[in-house]
């Protein structure tokens, strides 16, 4: 059992070449904050990137940030905030949901799992902001892709290819991201007491308006009290977040209140409370309960999401809330994960995919954690894996059994 903690890029290359020469599969981690997500690994050896850290380029005027893969996301966010900037895709922190401490995630993990938050629809996910990467492939070769400028179509976009690859294609050593100005201010409008279907319609109206809604979410009555210290308990809450320059936010808030006047009572939250609320939605705080009760992250056509939840409730005890601007439904099952039921209903309601984000190790080993792909697509993904990592030494089986 060996753990490598490389401190230079050369050492990362050498560690992979060692693994190749020994035919010894390795687990690739940062601090392991998302280790309990995905299929459990059986590898003996680990490459821990946590000591390969540091910012290598930050040019606020150019909107670019490059850092080594082991750099803490929390540190980078602090650095950006000091310069009035942010990762606009709001990387979620899986730590609390998976029973780990908050703030442990690394830059490499952020890209490998394609993190994002409730600004997803407007601002995209990590893959929409990555500009360039340096990567050690499963062949033990260092390659680069992309660059440090925001407009670049030179060659294939292997930087995006690394997104959501869960460390199975290569080890990103250094990553360059586009960063953007942080919003000057924010306000959240809260419509109280809507049923799930009414909320879906209200959010569609708001988001189809010129109100430039940055995030939208619906917390059903039993979830509403589990955020921001219970302030919203006692009724369902449908949340619309407005961001930007103060005069613009005020103007849009007035317009949206008019547009939704017939939907129900509207209250608003602003500043730090609003920020805390969205951070808790981003990090799925309503389902942080110290258990391994199955939690699903479902990405599907937003207007169909409430139908999935209603159908599931006919047959199983399920708790749900909607990160609508993220196009997500978060589900917590009281009993078994109900994988087939969830996936069959997603197919019925317009397609999408479900990821079993939290479950016991034995459940994750037995069920497909990620959405199974149709045969031609699965074969293509397997061929891609072989081109990057023909010996299958990087995180084998993390996403799909046998790959």
């Amino acid at each position, binding site marked *: 059992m*060996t753990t*490598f903690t*490389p401190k230079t890029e050369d*050492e990362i290359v050498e560690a992979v*070449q*060692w693994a190749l020469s020994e035919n010894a599969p390795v687990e690739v981690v940062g601090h392991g904050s998302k280790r309990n997500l995905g299929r459990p690994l059986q590898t003996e050896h680990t490459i821990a990137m946590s000591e390969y850290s540091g910012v290598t380029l930050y*040019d606020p*005027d*150019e*909107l670019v940030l490059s850092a080594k893969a082991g750099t803490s996301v929390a540190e980078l966010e602090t650095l950006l905030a000091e310069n009035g900037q942010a990762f606009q895709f709001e990387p979620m922190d899986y730590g609390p949901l998976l029973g780990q401490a908050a703030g442990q995630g690394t830059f490499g993990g952020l890209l490998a799992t394609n993190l*994002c938050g409730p600004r*997803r629809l407007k601002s995209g996910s990590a*893959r*929409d902001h990555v500009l360039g990467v340096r990567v050690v492939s499963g*062949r033990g070769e*260092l390659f680069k892709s992309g*660059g440090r*400028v*925001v*407009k*670049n*179509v*030179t*060659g294939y*976009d*292997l930087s*995006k*290819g690394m*997104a*959501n690859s869960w460390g199975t*294609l290569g080890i990103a050593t250094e990553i360059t991201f586009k960063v953007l100005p*942080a919003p000057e201010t924010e306000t959240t409008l809260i419509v109280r007491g809507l049923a799930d279907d009414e909320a879906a319609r209200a959010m569609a109206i708001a*988001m*189809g308006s*010129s109100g*430039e809604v940055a995030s939208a979410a619906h917390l059903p009555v039993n979830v509403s009290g589990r955020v921001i210290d219970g302030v919203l308990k006692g009724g369902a809450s449908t949340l619309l977040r407005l961001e930007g*320059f103060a*005069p*613009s936010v005020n103007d*849009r808030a007035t317009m949206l209140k008019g547009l939704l006047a017939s939907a129900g009572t509207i209250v608003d939250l602003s500043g730090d409370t609003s920020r805390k609320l969205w951070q808790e939605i981003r990090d799925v705080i309503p389902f942080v309960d110290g258990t391994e009760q199955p939690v699903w992250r479902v*990405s599907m*056509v937003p*207007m169909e999401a409430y139908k999935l939840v209603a159908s599931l409730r006919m047959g199983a005890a399920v708790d749900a809330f909607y990160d609508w601007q*993220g*196009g997500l439904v978060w589900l917590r099952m009281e009993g078994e994960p109900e994988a087939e039921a969830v996936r069959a209903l997603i197919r019925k309601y*317009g397609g*999408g*995919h479900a*990821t079993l984000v939290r479950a016991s190790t034995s459940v994750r080993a037995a069920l497909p954690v*990620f959405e199974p792909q*149709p045969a*031609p*697509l699965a074969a*293509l*993904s397997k*061929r*891609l894996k072989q*081109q990057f990592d*023909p010996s299958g030494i990087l995180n084998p089986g993390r*996403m799909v059994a046998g790959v």
Partner: protein
Amino acid sequence: MSGLLMPKADDSTMSRRSDIVTALRAIVPGEGVVDATNAMRVFESDALTAYRQLPLVVVLPQTVAQVSRVLKYCHENNVKVVPRGSGTSLSGGALPLEDAVLLVMSRFNQILEIDYPNRVAVVQPGVTNLGITNAVEHEGFYYAPDPSSQIACSIGGNVAENSGGVHCLKYGLTANNVLGLEMVLITGEVVRLGGKHLDSEGYDLLGLMTGSEGLLGVVTEVTVRILQKPATARALMVGFPTSEQAGKCVADIIAGGIIPGGMEMMDRPAIHAAEDFVHAGYPLDVEALLIIELDGPVVEVDHLISMVEAIAYKNGASTCVISQSEEERMAFWAGRKAAFPAVGRISPDYLCMDGTIPRKELPKVLAGMRELSEKYGLRVANVFHAGDGNLHPLILYDANIPEELHKAEDFGADILRLCVKVGGVLTGEHGVGVEKRELMPEMFNEIDLNQQIRVKCAFDDKHLLNPGKVFPQLHRCAELGRMHVHRGQVPFPEIPRF
């Protein structure tokens, strides 16, 4: 055709031409197969007209099943295929090959579904970029990426090239606005990536496909995000005595937390050419002109206009005009949008280059271009997507003067080398195609390029799709497979372990 070498035509394919035509006719009936030389002439070039080549045969399928059968036939019979949308590529990406079927997707021209509550449109790849906006604008929506050729270019081609435009800084490239694809692999297999939902599952094949220049698969359906049109848009036209001041103004706007809907710069030769052509009211006594557009709610735009105006004057602007009407805003843009034809009036020919640089390197790159201009004895005019560092130097030449095209090409290559040298890239939006293929090693070493070719191998192991584009030399996939690490050969004692 200038000195560029395309892969040698395969004699066996050429000798089978009539069999191939017959087989294709069995798949695509009627006028869907074009094999007469005269009729194929219209397809011999894309928008990079310096290069011309008649294809082996042209096929225009109408259904996904036909695309699938054509590709399957070509795969089984080792026939190369060049996919094409509207053929507006500026880098020769859709240039035919003598021994390849030209697969033209223009008959896939239907908008299949518009879903306003979920804010997506599902369209066939031959629909034009502007066609999507036209279909949804009566409901107050639009499709954001807006390449200059948007009236003609197809959305399938936009996916192949990851096209951008003026709006990209704020609203992203094609890659950020496409949610799903249906595509056909060279084997004829039909696969779907993503859909109306956000985030495709598994590897980001959607990200790999976007900008892959027709080398990985043929797109048969595209799901795009549509956005609510901003309530208003206003523009500022700002002139500066030096390009350095204009560049600093751009940096200060962004540092001020403002991301304009569009921010474009023109240099003196481009300003003069455009003003002479469209009489937009551009100042002629400045070295650099910025057009900055702010869009969004009325109060926000008013607020930002005053912020940007102050930043402009702080940086030494000699003129600053704010549009007071839609007509005036359009007039500001008229000159910029007509810059290419305007330059066409002052020179018999020009070559449009496309490199991206870190914005702060602009003064250095402009100075370098002036030196190169003297070296080659050719003029250059510059239009520039200032917000995202994407330069479009227009190199003026006369094709009737022997060797001038060659000189212009060398000049262009030197400009792109300079872009890479200051931390930029070879192409910001036009693609590598055949035009910049030989320059790829300026940016990538052999390992970098081989890893890209390996992606190609995963999709198309026989290299039948659009060969000769993007990569300077083709390795067979098997040749890429060599590995040099053997057990025990390297001890790695220096790696920290515990």
